[in-house]
Each structure stands twice: as structure tokens, then as C-alpha cells.
């Protein structure tokens, strides 16, 4: 009889110890996983820079402004690819940003209620198409169409502006790459914008309408000013995606190491140059220069993402970004 309570107490204290161990170990394991994610980011930066070291120590920052990429003479510089990256992303942003904001507005404010869900998920499906499939479509369908129809027309009408130069017969080039990138980033920017616009308080919108504003005046006077920073962050996120896209761009950009003003000519971006030479570079210096390109791309990717995330967080501390 006297054994009962003490055995009970023993069991209870054992369970308490078990609970303590369980709590500490669950906390420890999950903490380890979280730290692993942080270490992973650090390891990526370290490893990529480490791989590029031979080229970094040979060229230093002068690599960024080097205009030639010549594997035969073993002279390497990143400027043609930085130029190609900037220009293709610029083309994509110029077309995508207005379209995406308009789609976001249409989905959140203008569309008939029944259409919003369907069209919204169709736009998201566009984002789900794998980039390699989009690239395949770009090289075999969009490229030939552009080189036979749109580009000769633009060249004929606006050829006096140097960017609308003579089109390539194959349809591969900077402009095609820009259009493919546009298709990739429109759904990203549009769905973030839609979320932003939906967060604007209804009272403000209704107030503007009640004062006699048209819907466009309400959008311009209430919604766009209220979400300006968020839109900027969405565009930067789209830009980050465009800058870093390798596969689809490699398929359609044609490959070239010259800086040319012709938008319809072949070119290469940082990412596409790396992807195009995956089957091995000849010399050690060439491959480490390719990895130097990757390091530049990494820095650009980190910066754009970090800036966008910080803006998004300041704008909407509750939800963060997607």
C-alpha cells in the first residue's frame, strides 16, 4: 500500500524528465534546421566566390568593365554579359510592369466578381509553366514569328533608331529574350500587386467614388499612392527573376560576346553565358571566369532580393513577401 504513491511519484518525475528531454531536443533539432538554412545561404556565397577565385585574383574588379571575352587569346571580361543582362531585363520590365499592374488592378477592382478567381488562377498558371518549356516555345515559335514579321516591320518603320537594327534570320536575340522574360515576370508582379490592391481599405475607395471620382481617378488618387512602395518591391522581385533566369534566355538569346546596340541581334546575359557553357570550358581560367560571372550574378541576386524584401516588410510587416 505504501509503495503506490512513491511509485506514482517516481513515474511522474520520470515523465517530467522525459518531457524536459523531449522539449529540449525538439527545440534543438528545429533550431539546427533553421540554422542549417542560414548556413546554406552563407555556404552558397562562400563556395561560388571560392570557385571564382583564380579569375578574381587575376582580373580583380576590372573584370566588370572588361569588354572582350576571347577564349582563344584567354582574355575575359564581363561587360558584354552585364550589358546583355541589363538590356534584356530592361525590355522585360518596360513591357511587364504596366501590364502586370493593369492586370493586378483588373483582378482586384475592375473585373466582374465571377471572373476574378478564374482569371487570377489562369495568370498564376502562366507562372507555373517551366522555363525550359517557355524557352522551347520561344526558340521554335516566337523567335521565327518575330524574325519574319514584327522585327522587319519595326526595322523598316523605326530603323533610324539604332536599337531597331537588322533582325536575325533565326529569330534569336535580345528582344526575343526580353519578351520571354516578360511572360515569366508578368504573373509574378501581377499576383503581388493584386494582393496589395486588395489591402487598400474599402472605405477610402468608396469615399473617393462617393466624391464623384471615376474609377480610374479613384485608382490613381487612392490605390496607387497607397501601394506605391509595394509596387516598387513587386517590380524589383520581378527584376530579380528576370536578371537571374538562365534556361529560357539561353535558348532564345542566340549567344554573342559583342556589345551591340541592335536589340534584334544575338547577345548573352550573365546567366545564359554560364548555362550555355555547361558542357565544359577549355581552360582553367575560362571556367573560373565563368564562375566569376556566377559570383556577379549572385551578388546582383542577393541585392535585388534583399532590397525588395526589406521594402515589402516595411510596407506590410504582417505578411512578409511570398
Amino acid at each position: 500500500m505504501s509503495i503506490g504513491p512513491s511509485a506514482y511519484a517516481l513515474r511522474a518525475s520520470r515523465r517530467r524528465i522525459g518531457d524536459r528531454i523531449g522539449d529540449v531536443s525538439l527545440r534543438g533539432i528545429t533550431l539546427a534546421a533553421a540554422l542549417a538554412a542560414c548556413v546554406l545561404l552563407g555556404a552558397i556565397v562562400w563556395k561560388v566566390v571560392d570557385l571564382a577565385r583564380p579569375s578574381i585574383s587575376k582580373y580583380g574588379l576590372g573584370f566588370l568593365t572588361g569588354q572582350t571575352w576571347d577564349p582563344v587569346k584567354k582574355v575575359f571580361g564581363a561587360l558584354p554579359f552585364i550589358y546583355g543582362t541589363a538590356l534584356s531585363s530592361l525590355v522585360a520590365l518596360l513591357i511587364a510592369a504596366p501590364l502586370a499592374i493593369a492586370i493586378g488592378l483588373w483582378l482586384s477592382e475592375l473585373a466582374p466578381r465571377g471572373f476574378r478567381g478564374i482569371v487570377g488562377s489562369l495568370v498564376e498558371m502562366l507562372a507555373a509553366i517551366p522555363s525550359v518549356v517557355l524557352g522551347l516555345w520561344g526558340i521554335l515559335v516566337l523567335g521565327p514569328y518575330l524574325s519574319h514579321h514584327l522585327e522587319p516591320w519595326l526595322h523598316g518603320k523605326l530603323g533610324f533608331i539604332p536599337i531597331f537594327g537588322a533582325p536575325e534570320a533565326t529569330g534569336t536575340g535580345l528582344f526575343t529574350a526580353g519578351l520571354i522574360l516578360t511572360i515569366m515576370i508578368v504573373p509574378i508582379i501581377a499576383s503581388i500587386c493584386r494582393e496589395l490592391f486588395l489591402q487598400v481599405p474599402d472605405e477610402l475607395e468608396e469615399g473617393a467614388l462617393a466624391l464623384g471620382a471615376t474609377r480610374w481617378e479613384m485608382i490613381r488618387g487612392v490605390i496607387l499612392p497607397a501601394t506605391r512602395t509595394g509596387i516598387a518591391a513587386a517590380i524589383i522581385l520581378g527584376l530579380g527573376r528576370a536578371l537571374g533566369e538562365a534556361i529560357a534566355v539561353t535558348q532564345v538569346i542566340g549567344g554573342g560576346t559583342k556589345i551591340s546596340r541592335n536589340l534584334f541581334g544575338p547577345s548573352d546575359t550573365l546567366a545564359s553565358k554560364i548555362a550555355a557553357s555547361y558542357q565544359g570550358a577549355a581552360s582553367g581560367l575560362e571556367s573560373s571566369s565563368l564562375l566569376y560571372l556566377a559570383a556577379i550574378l549572385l551578388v546582383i541576386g542577393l541585392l535585388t532580393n534583399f532590397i525588395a524584401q526589406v521594402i515589402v516588410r516595411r510596407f506590410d510587416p504582417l505578411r512578409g513577401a511570398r
Partner: protein
Amino acid sequence: MAAARAEFSLSPSGHVRRRRIVNRTMESFGTLAALLAVGVLVLVVATVAIRAAPALDWSFFTKSPNLFGGPGGGISSAIVGSALIVGLATAMAVPVGVLVAVYLTEFAHPSIAGGIQLVLDVLNGLPTIVTGIFVYGLLVVGHTQSAYAGAFALAVVMLPLVARAAQEVLLLVPSALREGGLALGVSRWRTVLGVILPTTLGGILTGTVLAVARAAGETAPLLFTCSIFNPSVSTDVTHALPNIPVLIFTYSEQPDKTLHEQAWGAALVLMAFVLIASLTAKALLARSRRKLGR
């Protein structure tokens, strides 16, 4: 008198008419933009389906690619390889991702959680070719390409997606469940493992499916880790295995028409998988959200 009546006229003056025209123009621009996006989607999907049709027959799914190109041959080895690589990547990414999410929602101090979330979001936005280069330097240099290296690269892509999805559903769990567990004297870890995680299982599953759909279409991480392979069917993950994205990529760069046809076929298979997976996942997600009351 006549002048006064004109001032109170209800028909729109020129100014109002201009505002209406501007409004109408802008509204139709929005409609056009949405139509354009849907149109491009339909165009791409239809083109892939139509161009893939000639390649699709039974042998397309049962044969391996021909060693030297040419007509005939299928993509069976690439399907097997892709399934293995993505499966391995899922097995690596999901446990870690869920643990990270549990730490963020159950244990972490808010400011630390914010920092880790930032890391996850930055990780998510990194160019995937850089992820491929990282794994190339980590696992391929000095060794050879292998399916597990490719799987690790895809796991790096999947990790932030899984973690963020799991975190979102964990945050939806009513705090009454946590408090109820603790009030009954149940320890923290038993509450988390026995009560909270089971309620979020559906949400985590759909997040996983979305991440799988994304990873299945990723080519860039595999380019440096798992792209030089023998085209026959194999399940040896210590060697590079054929896989669908790299196959489409290399075929699309060739001038050979029959290879293009195969690329379209493979693209249809890949796209069908990705779109169906992400659509089901989104439908399920919407349902589980409703169930958790949001």
C-alpha cells in the same frame, strides 16, 4: 432665365465627358492586359499540345532516347530519372523545411524569426543557376555528376518553398489548441508533434506538392550537376541520370527536327504534370484554409 437653366443642365459637360473617356480607356487597358496574359497561356499550352501530338505514342513512354538521335526512341529513362531526382530532393527538403517552420512558429523569438524568414525569402529568390554552381562546386568538382547532386540542388530550391508553406499553415492553427494542450499538462513537444503538426498535415502536403511542381521543371540546377548521362534507363543515383528538363533543353538547342518533336512531347509531359500538380495543390490549399477558418 435661359442661361440659368443651361447651367443646371444634367447632360455631361466637356470636362466630365473627357474624364469618362479617360476612365473607359484605362478600364479597357486593364481588361486587355488580362486577356493578353490568358491569351499567351492558351497559346503556349495549345502550341505544346499540338506540336507534341505526332511524338506521342506508346513507345514514347516505354523506350529510351536513341544514343545518336534520329527518329524513334522515347523518354522513359528521363521520366524514371526525373522521378528519382525529384523524389530524392523532396525527401531532403521536406523534413528540414517543416522543422524550420516549426522552429519559426513555435520556438523562435519574433526578431530572430524575422531574420530567418528573410534568409528563406532571399534563398527563394536566388537565381537557380547559382544554386547549380554551388552544388557543382560542393559535390561535383573532383567527383562526377550524379543524380544525388542534382537532387541536392533541387532540394535547395525547394527548401524555402516548403518552409514558407508549412509556416503559413502553422500560423493558421488556432492558439486555443496550443493552450489547450499546455493546460492539460501536456508537454510542449508532445503538443507540437501530437496536436499541432497533425492538424497542418494537409497544408504541408499541398505546400510540398507545389514545391515538387516547381522543382520538376527546374533545369538550371541540374545543368552542372546531372546533365551528362547515358540515355538508357537506370536507377543508380551515384551517376547522372537522364531527366526531362535537361532533355528538353539539349534537344531544343539541336537543329534536328525529330529531336524537336521529342522535345515537344517531353514538354507536354512535363507541363501537364506541373500544371495538374499545382492546380490540385491550390484547390486543396483553399479547402484546408477554409477548414482552419480563414
